[in-house]
C-alpha cells in the first residue's frame, strides 16, 4: 500500500495550482513545438531551462518534462497532414497517417493518434511507478565499474542506434565527450581546453550549447531547406473526427501492443521514441493478416507507433530517475537540469526526495490528461499553427534564444558560444551527422571519466575490475555487440552486392 501512499503525496504536489499552471504551460509549449516541423523538444527544453532557475526544482522538472511528452502528442499532427514528422519520433506515423489524410480521414487519424498516445503514456507511467522502487534498490549495489559500464552502453547504443551512419553517430558522441572535458578537471583541478578564456574554466554552458545545436542550428537548417506546404484547414470539428466503430476496434490491440513494446524499449539505454515507434510499426505489419494494407492508410499503422513513442518517453524516465543514467539526449538534458538545481540523480533520489520523484510522476498523469483535453477539441487551432509565417516564427525563436542564453549568466561570451554551436549544428545536418549524441556525450562525459578513474584507483590499476560484476560484464558485452553490429551488417551488404555481380 506504500505505493498508494506515495502517489497520494505526489498528487498533493502535482495538483497545487502552481504545478497545474506550469504543467499546462509545459504541455502546451511541447505540443506547439511538436506540431512545428523542424523545431524539436530539445530546442524548447533548452529555451525554458533558464526559466526554471526561478522555480522550485520540482516545478522546473514538471515544466521541462511536460514539453518533452507534449511534443510527442503534437508531432503526429504534421506527420498526418503534411507527411513531414514534427519530431523524428513521429516519422513512422507518416507512413499510414498521411495516406489517411489524403483519403479525407485526417480528423479520424488525429483522433485515434491522440487516444493511443494517451493510452501509451499511461502504460509508461504505470510501469514507471511499478519498477522505480525495485530498480533503485537494485542500483544501490552499483559501484564505479557498474556505473561506467552502464553509461558506456548508453553512449554507444544511442550513437549507433540512431538512423543513419553509425560512424558519424559515434564520432559525434566522442566529440561531445571532448566538449564535456572543457573546464576544470574535478579530480586534479587542472584546466583543460580553456583556450585561456576565464569563462571556460567552469566548462561550456549547457544552455549555450543546447540552444546553439538545437535552436540556432535547427532554425538555420529549416531556413535552408525547401519550403513546407500548407496544410488543409477543414474537417477538424470534434463530431467530424470520430472514427467509425470498425476503425476504433482495429486500433485497440495495436495500441496495447505498441504501449508495451514502447515502454520496454524506452527504458533501455540508448533507445528513444523514434526507435520505439518504428519497432511497433514493423511488429504490427509483420503480425497483421493483411500486411498489404500498411502504407495505404491502415489504422493499426498509426495507433501502434503513437502508443509506442508516448509509452517510451514516460518509460525513459525510469533509468534517469532510478539509476541516474539517461538513455537519450533529452533525458541527459533533464539530468543536467537536475544537477544545476542541486539535485543528485541516482538510486537515492526516491528515498531522499520522495516529494520530488512522486510529484513528477503524478504530474505526468495530469499532463497526459490535459493533453487529451487540449488536443481533441482544439485540433483546428493546432493545425493553424502550421500556417504561422516563417518570417515571424524564426526571428521570434532566434530572439528568444538570444535573451535566454544571455540571461543565464549575463554573459555575451555564452551567446557567442551558442553561435559557434549553431554553425556546427547547421553544418552537421547538411552532412547528416546527428546532433543528439554530442549532448549526451557532453553531459555524461565527466561522469564516465570520474567512474573510470575511480575504478582504476580502487583496483590499483587492474583493468579486471571492470569485469568484476555480472552487470558490468553484460553491459560491456553489449557495447562490443553494438560496435560490431554495424560493421558486420555493412560487410554482409558488400558481400551480397559482390555476389550479385
Amino acid at each position, binding site marked *: 500500500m506504500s505505493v498508494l501512499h506515495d502517489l497520494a503525496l505526489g498528487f498533493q504536489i502535482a495538483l497545487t495550482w502552481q504545478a497545474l499552471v506550469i504543467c499546462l504551460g509545459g504541455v502546451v509549449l511541447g505540443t506547439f513545438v511538436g506540431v512545428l516541423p523542424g523545431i524539436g523538444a530539445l530546442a524548447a527544453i533548452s529555451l525554458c531551462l533558464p526559466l526554471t532557475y526561478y522555480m522550485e526544482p520540482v516545478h522546473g522538472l514538471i515544466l521541462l518534462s511536460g514539453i518533452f511528452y507534449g511534443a510527442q502528442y503534437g508531432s503526429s499532427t504534421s506527420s498526418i497532414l503534411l507527411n513531414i514528422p514534427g519530431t523524428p519520433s513521429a516519422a513512422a506515423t507518416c507512413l499510414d497517417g498521411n495516406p489517411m489524410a489524403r483519403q479525407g480521414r485526417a480528423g479520424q487519424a488525429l483522433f485515434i493518434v491522440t487516444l493511443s498516445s494517451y493510452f501509451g503514456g499511461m502504460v509508461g507511467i504505470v510501469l514507471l511507478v511499478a519498477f522505480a522502487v525495485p530498480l533503485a534498490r537494485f542500483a544501490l549495489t552499483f559501484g564505479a565499474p557498474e556505473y561506467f559500464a552502464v553509461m558506456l552502453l548508453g553512449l554507444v547504443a544511442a550513437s549507433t542506434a540512431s538512423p543513419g551512419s553509425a560512424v558519424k553517430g559515434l564520432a559525434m558522441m*566522442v566529440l561531445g565527450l*571532448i566538449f564535456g572535458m572543457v573546464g576544470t578537471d574535478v579530480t586534479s583541478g587542472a584546466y583543460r*581546453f580553456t583556450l585561456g578564456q576565464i569563462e571556460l574554466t567552469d566548462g561550456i554552458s549547457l544552455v549555450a550549447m543546447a540552444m546553439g545545436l538545437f535552436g540556432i542550428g535547427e532554425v538555420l537548417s529549416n531556413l535552408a531547406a525547401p519550403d513546407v506546404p500548407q496544410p488543409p484547414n477543414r474537417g477538424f470539428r470534434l463530431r467530424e473526427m470520430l472514427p467509425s466503430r470498425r476503425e476504433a476496434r482495429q486500433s485497440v490491440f495495436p495500441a496495447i501492443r505498441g504501449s508495451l513494446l514502447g515502454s520496454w524499449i524506452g527504458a533501455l539505454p540508448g533507445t528513444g521514441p523514434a526507435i520505439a515507434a518504428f519497432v511497433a510499426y514493423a511488429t504490427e505489419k509483420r503480425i497483421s493478416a493483411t500486411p498489404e494494407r500498411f502504407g495505404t492508410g491502415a489504422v493499426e499503422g498509426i495507433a501502434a507507433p503513437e502508443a509506442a513513442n508516448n509509452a517510451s518517453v514516460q518509460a525513459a524516465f525510469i533509468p534517469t530517475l532510478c539509476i541516474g543514467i539517461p538513455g537519450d539526449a533529452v533525458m541527459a538534458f533533464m539530468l543536467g537540469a537536475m544537477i544545476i538545481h542541486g539535485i543528485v540523480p541516482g538510486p537515492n533520489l526516491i528515498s531522499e526526495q520522495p516529494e520530488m520523484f512522486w510529484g513528477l510522476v503524478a504530474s505526468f498523469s495530469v499532463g497526459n490528461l490535459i493533453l487529451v483535453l487540449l488536443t481533441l477539441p482544439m485540433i483546428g487551432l493546432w493545425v493553424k499553427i502550421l500556417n504561422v509565417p516563417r518570417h515571424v516564427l524564426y*526571428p521570434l525563436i*532566434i530572439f528568444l534564444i538570444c*535573451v535566454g542564453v544571455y540571461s543565464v549568466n*549575463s554573459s555575451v561570451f555564452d551567446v*557567442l558560444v551558442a553561435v559557434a554551436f549553431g554553425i556546427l549544428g547547421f553544418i552537421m545536418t547538411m552532412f547528416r551527422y546527428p546532433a543528439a549524441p554530442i549532448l549526451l556525450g557532453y553531459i555524461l562525459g565527466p561522469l564516465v571519466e570520474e567512474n573510470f578513474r575511480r575504478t582504476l584507483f580502487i583496483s590499483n590499476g587492474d583493468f579486471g575490475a571492470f569485469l568484476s560484476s555480472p552487470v558490468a560484464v553484460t553491459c560491456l558485452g553489449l557495447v562490443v555487440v553494438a560496435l560490431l553490429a554495424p560493421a558486420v551488417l555493412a560487410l554482409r551488404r558488400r558481400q551480397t552486392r559482390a555476389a550479385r555481380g
Partner: protein
Amino acid sequence: MHHTFYRIGRLPELIFALFLFAIGAVSAICGWSYGPGRLNDIGPGAFPLGLGVFLMILAALALREAGTESALSRRLAPACFYLPGVILWALLIEGAGLLLATLALILLCSFAEEQLNLKRALLLSLILTAVGYVVFILGFGLTFNLIGDWF
C-alpha cells in the same frame, strides 16, 4: 535573389571530416601535455588523449563515407544574415540595450527574406522588444537595460 539553392557535394563533407580529424589531433596533443598519469592514478590528460585518438579514427572512417549518400540542395543565404544578427545582438545588448540590439537582429533576419518588408520588420522588432521588456525585465527581474549605457 536569396532563392539560390546550392548542391552540397562531396568536397565540403570531406573538409568537415578533416576538421573533426584535426579536433581529435588537437585533443590528443593537449591530453599528452596535460599528463596521462599512471594506471592506478589516471591523470587529467588520459581521457582527452584517448578520446582524441578515437575521434581521429572515426573521422578517418567518416572520410571514406563522404559523398556516399545523395547530395542535398540547400539555401545558404539565410544563415549569412541570421548568424551575424545574433553576433550583433550579443555585441549590442550591454552597450546599446535591448531595444537597439533587437532592432538590429530582426532587421538582419528580415534581409534573409526574398522581399524585404521594412515596415513589417520594424513592427516585429518593436513588438518583440516590448514582449521581452515585460516578460524578462519586469516579469523575471533580469538585469538588462532597455536603453544601454552608451546613451
